[in-house]
């Protein structure tokens, strides 16, 4: 900008002295600039796919390129995990610090290949596909940082998902060699298959100092509540098999058992249940005639009949998830995906993400000892509850089990919630499926409070310039005993409100607020002057109010009107000078899920002499426009939140044949 200004200002001085060669010079300059412009433009607006492919090929590397690290035999081994570790003792919270987004920063160690002195790798599989997916999901997420000094949580790239493929001692040594290990502080390990034969411990056996463990298959004795995170065992089938979602409802089988490695004692017990209850139960096992391999994982058999797995799970209401050698079972994930309610028989098992997920709404937990009573217990569950559980189960799978990404990010979110508990996700956010989130209403004023008499209400009168009528309204309202304050919203910018001495003398404080613009929405602005919970909103042309009649809005909804109302509605109201009251009703209904309450039989609200032209409600197009409003608002809210009710509130003795002076509100109804 600056340079060009200088250039053109110098222009006129140059031109008279210009010669032909100069002209050529200028033309060349011009064409060069033009060409440059075109080139830049091309570069700028060329489809970006080319670049990203270039990037992608650049990043596309082999695991074998990762640096090789040789572990000396004498390399230090971390201590075994400390069972008393909690966030306030074993986690360095200073690393996370305060940040306005309330989000932890996670660093992932670059991939290294660890081998022992003989060159044998520490793990038989190396980096697994699943762990790779998990790490790349985290690195693509908001949690990721590549700045190791700013990180709050560290994730080693050493894959410990499956303990069976690990050499325990060497893996531990490798962990201790990580540059930021520092006794495992703020390190997070992901493990899905802990323990090994013969005793199958329920937590990873690799010594790991103070590192947090996100483990599948914790028992109550190894799980450090509030420190570790219990995660599901990922089922690779879910990525492979496309299944249409099945709606909740009754299904062909009542109970299905599809696991292959069930202890013979339990299998015998299941057989007995099948004998007693017949067709309601389907008891599947491995197919003996099929060869081992990927194909056999997709088939199950019962008495020679072959069923497709996991599709068959969709045919049953309940699916048994029995403990195997380990507590965590990949079958749980398949079962949830099918929208089949898991019946979990694994004593002392800490269910996946139990810190935040309410499993009671998605599963049935039965002690192993009561396996024989399973049928009776499940039969006692009301079928509507079964449907809700089916829906909930599928939703849990979709949100938290379906991919390594889902599992990884959920784990990080749980840890994030512990570090910033005041910004934690709520129970509803974790547990309500989107269907429910849309249809449910959580009123922001949920406490059943009976409005107290003491604070009274604030009357808000919106006026333009009808002073005479306004004064009458004010005088009338001021007779109400519960009135605490009167607020006049002066909506006329061209005219000043009358002198203070001219206002009627009333017993309560009266405030006049002048607005900057003549907007109907001003009525619902949350003025600081409103100190009471209840607000009476009235127009200046309503003079037929007898002093007993009250119509309550809530101050809160005023606030909502200004700050929470979908943006375009507010603008619409201001532009059309109409419908602000309808908008308010929409909002209140949407937030509380309740209908408003009409009080007493008053219907005529306008004074007869106010038929002046400036009376808003008299405009010919008014009614038409108001119908339009309703349609417009309904489309913005996405649903029709308004509810129709057939009742109205009257005082208890209304219209009773009873001495008027004994009634609390005798003036009502004297139309």
């Amino acid at each position, binding site marked *: 900008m600056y340079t060009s200004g200088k250039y*053109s200002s110098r222009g006129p001085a140059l031109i008279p002295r210009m010669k032909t060669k100069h002209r050529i010079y200028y033309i060349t300059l011009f064409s060069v600039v033009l060409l440059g*412009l075109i080139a830049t433009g091309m570069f700028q607006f060329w489809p970006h796919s080319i670049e990203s492919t270039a990037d992608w090929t650049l990043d596309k590397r082999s695991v074998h390129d990762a640096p090789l690290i040789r572990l000396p035999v004498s390399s230090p081994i971390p201590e075994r995990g400390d069972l008393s570790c909690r966030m306030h003792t074993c986690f360095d919270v200073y690393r996370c610090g305060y940040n306005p987004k309330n989000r932890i920063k996670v660093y992932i160690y670059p991939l290294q290949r660890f081998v022992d002195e003989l060159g044998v790798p520490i793990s038989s599989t190396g980096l*697994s596909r699943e762990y790779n997916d998990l790490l790349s999901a985290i690195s693509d997420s908001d949690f990721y940082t590549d700045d190791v000094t700013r990180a709050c949580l560290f994730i080693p790239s050493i894959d410990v998902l499956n303990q069976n493929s690990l050499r325990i001692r060497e893996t531990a040594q490798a962990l201790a060699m990580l540059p930021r290990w520092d006794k495992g502080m703020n390190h997070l390990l992901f493990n899905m298959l802990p323990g090994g034969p013969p005793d199958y411990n329920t937590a990873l056996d690799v010594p790991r100092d103070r590192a947090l463990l996100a483990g599948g298959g914790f028992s109550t004795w190894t799980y450090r509540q509030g420190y570790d995170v219990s995660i599901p065992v990922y089922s690779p089938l879910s990525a492979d098999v496309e299944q249409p979602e099945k709606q909740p409802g009754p299904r062909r089988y009542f109970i299905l058992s599809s696991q292959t490695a069930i*202890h013979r004692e339990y299998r015998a017990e299941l057989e007995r249940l099948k004998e007693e209850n017949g067709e309601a139960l389907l008891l599947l096992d491995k197919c003996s005639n099929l060869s081992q391999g990927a194909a056999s*994982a997709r088939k199950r058999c019962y008495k020679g009949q072959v069923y497709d797995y996991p599709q068959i799970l969709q045919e049953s209401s309940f699916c048994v998830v029995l403990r195997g050698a380990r507590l965590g079972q990949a079958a749980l994930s398949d079962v949830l995906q099918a929208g089949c309610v898991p019946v979990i028989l694994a004593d002392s098992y800490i269910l996946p993400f139990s810190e935040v997920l309410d499993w009671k709404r998605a599963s049935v937990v039965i002690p192993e000892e009561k396996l024989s009573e399973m049928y009776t217990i499940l039969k006692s*569950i*009301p079928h509507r509850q079964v449907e*809700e559980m089916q829906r909930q189960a599928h939703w849990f799978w979709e949100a938290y089990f379906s991919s390594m990404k889902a599992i990884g990010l959920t784990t990080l979110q749980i840890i994030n919630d512990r570090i910033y508990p005041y910004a934690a996700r709520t129970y509803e956010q974790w547990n309500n499926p989107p269907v429910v989130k849309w249809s449910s209403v959580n009123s922001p004023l949920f406490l059943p409070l009976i409005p107290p008499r003491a604070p009274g209400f604030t009357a808000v009168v919106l006026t333009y310039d009808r002073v005479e009528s306004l004064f009458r309204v004010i005088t009338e309202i001021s007779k109400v005993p519960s009135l605490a304050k009167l607020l006049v919203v002066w909506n006329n910018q061209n005219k000043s409100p009358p002198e203070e001495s001219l206002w009627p003398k009333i017993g309560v404080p009266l405030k006049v607020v002048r607005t900057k613009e003549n907007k109907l929405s001003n009525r619902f602005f949350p003025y600081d002057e409103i*100190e009471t919970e209840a607000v009476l909103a009235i127009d200046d042309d309503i003079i037929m109010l007898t002093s007993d009649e009250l119509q309550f809005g809530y*101050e809160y909804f005023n606030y909502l009107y200004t700050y929470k109302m979908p943006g375009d509605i507010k603008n619409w109201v201001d532009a059309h000078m109409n419908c602000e009251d309808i908008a308010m009703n929409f909002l209140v209904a949407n937030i509380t899920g309740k209908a408003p309450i009409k009080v007493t039989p008053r219907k005529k609200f306008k004074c007869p002499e106010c038929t002046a032209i400036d009376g808003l409600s008299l405009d010919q197009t008014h009614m038409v426009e108001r119908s339009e409003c309703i349609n417009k608002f309904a489309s913005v809210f996405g649903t029709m939140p308004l509810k129709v009710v057939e009742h109205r509130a009257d005082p208890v003795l209304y219209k009773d044949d009873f001495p008027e002076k004994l009634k609390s509100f005798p003036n009502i109804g004297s139309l």
Partner: protein
Amino acid sequence: MQAKKRYLILLSAGACVLLLSFLGGLQLPAARSRQDRSRTGHRPDQPWPHFSDPLHPFVPWDHTDTEEYNVHVSPRQKRDVNTSVYKGRRCRMDSCFDFSVCQRTGFKVYVYPQQKGDKISESYQNILATIEGSRFYTSDPGQACLFVLSLDTLDRDQLSPQYVHNLKTKVQNLPLWNDGRNHLIFNLYSGTWPDYTEDLGFDIGQAMLAKASISTENFRPNFDVSIPLFSKEHPRTGGERGFLRYNSIPPFRKYMLVFKGKRYLTGIGSDTRNALYHVHNAEDVVLLTTCKHGKDWQKHKDARCDKDNAEYDKYDYKEMLHNSTFCLVPRGRRLGSFRFLEALQAACVPVMLSNGWELPFSEIIDWNTAAVIGDERLLLQIPTTVRSIHQDKILSLRQQTQFLWEAYFSSVEKIVLTTLEIIQDRVLEHSSRSSLMWNSHPGGLFALPQYSGYLGDFPFFYATLGIKPHPKFTAVIHAVSPLVSQSQPILKLLVAVAKSQYCAQIIVLWNCDKALPAKHRWPATSVPVIVIEGENKVMSSRFLPYETIVTDAVLSLDEDTVLSTTEVDFAFTVWQSFPERIVGYPARSHFWDSNKERWGYTSKWTNDYSMVLTGAAIYHRYYHYLYTNYLPSSLKNMVDQLANCEDILMNFLVSAVTKLPPIKVTQKKQYKETMMGQSSRASRWADPDHFAQRQTCMNKFASWFGAMPLVHSQMRLDPVLFKDQVSILRKKYRDIERL
């Protein structure tokens, strides 16, 4: 001309340069960032790279489940091994609790008989009295699932006057001790100066602890119960309500964050309180400490003491408590402090600074919805943190403090019952409460999971689940007099109710001594009429949770009630808007009789009412279950013996649950034939004792509930055009106008 042309060329060239530099400028940052990325691509710490080579799955296909398990030890044996290994500090329900007794008899609690000479503190007396008065109590140890000692274990601070000596031997000598298996031990204080250990000073064996100020290290999850620290003055039943009377918007109060308490200078737990002065600003963050406590405080006094003490005396604790948005609850010598419950009741959102405290009832309460859990290590960030909390969130935190206070903490009874219910939920795992039931109104003590596991079967969760109640009702008519003539009111009533478009079925509860009338004596109706012979013919049987009631709404009727079809229809449409309340016709009121110092009952026409009698009322069928299973047999027996007051009791119950008044619909007040003077049959309403009995009932009920749960209302709901001067043809409920 030439010059002009040149000038033009020059100008356009200039413009092009400008454009170029502009576009280039746009381009440059993008290019730079791309370059950055490609450069870091070669550095070791980069975003996770995309690996081109095929990777192995973490578990091979044929290993999806291990084969070894089939030859492994029997799972039963493995469970037995667990029980022998996990003892003491590693106790869990699976290893240290015997479920078998509970399965046989249900969840029953036995309290050891008190021995003469045992000194028992008032608080512990209250705990024992609550258990003995609860529906879980059994006096037969053979039936018991849980045992509670009559030895006072509340205060295990050796320096305390309440400390019970020789507890070790006393406990070991108990005949049913069985190494503490299935025993529950209550404790408020343990350990003493200087280290305040959490050891109780005797071997608790396999017993469960219900303990205040327990730390997460010592807390055995799903086995122990963390209870709040409560004072000697904490009321046994009822309890004060929360202090929040109305919501204010914006929700900020005079102070942002306050605290007033002792400072310890040295020793365990002193650090946090000693550092509070850093955050104090004497404006909206007022954190006051005093060194003046104990006999020899002057000895330990530090440089800041005099200044702190002076500041401390300037403020009034009560004033601060009621006028602050947040209240700091830092640990004292022990982890829990009285400040916690005080703040909760005052609707001052507690800001916890007590690292490692297992918060009260943490197993079931989601404390993030009612408190701010701070970290002692981050004390200096606390003001910034609380200021960053959005006002919507403050509003909801504040209301939740009130809900939790009233649901679980306001009396010793609530604390004890919550403890027992938590343990019951563990014992009957498949019919236990979900977190939603514990954390939303009306709370776990009123939402009994044995009724149904489906939330939609309760009257409280329709909005949360986004569903509506069943669109029909079941009428239950309570019949006490024999069927003699065809013009009897019950038959008219039956016909009128059956005509309602919302009626699903009619149940006639035959509580008459005479035999059931023949089937053809009942009028033919379009809805099924089911006649049930009342159990023992007692009053309470009208509120039994009959399996035959399939709808959510119950229309409860006396046999002599006079109602038209329109009135029934209208009442039901109103109930659909208020499914958790009693909606009906006959309204009554209560009042405090200051002369006699007791509650009075009135059926006079007054300007308000607090009860709607169940002679013609609609309510949710869950209240049948609650009436039968929640109320103690002492009250139900009283009702049965008097054959009276069952409707008052129902109103007490529903108002105690909802904290709201019932709803009266339309003008109708006379709804009995007898009252209209047409017949003088020996109705129970004609009995002169009847009214006096109802006064007595009221006072008896109020004392059991610990407070008066009834709430007055001045509102009556009428059809929208009721008595309006418009054409009758425009009105939907025309019959209601004619009395």
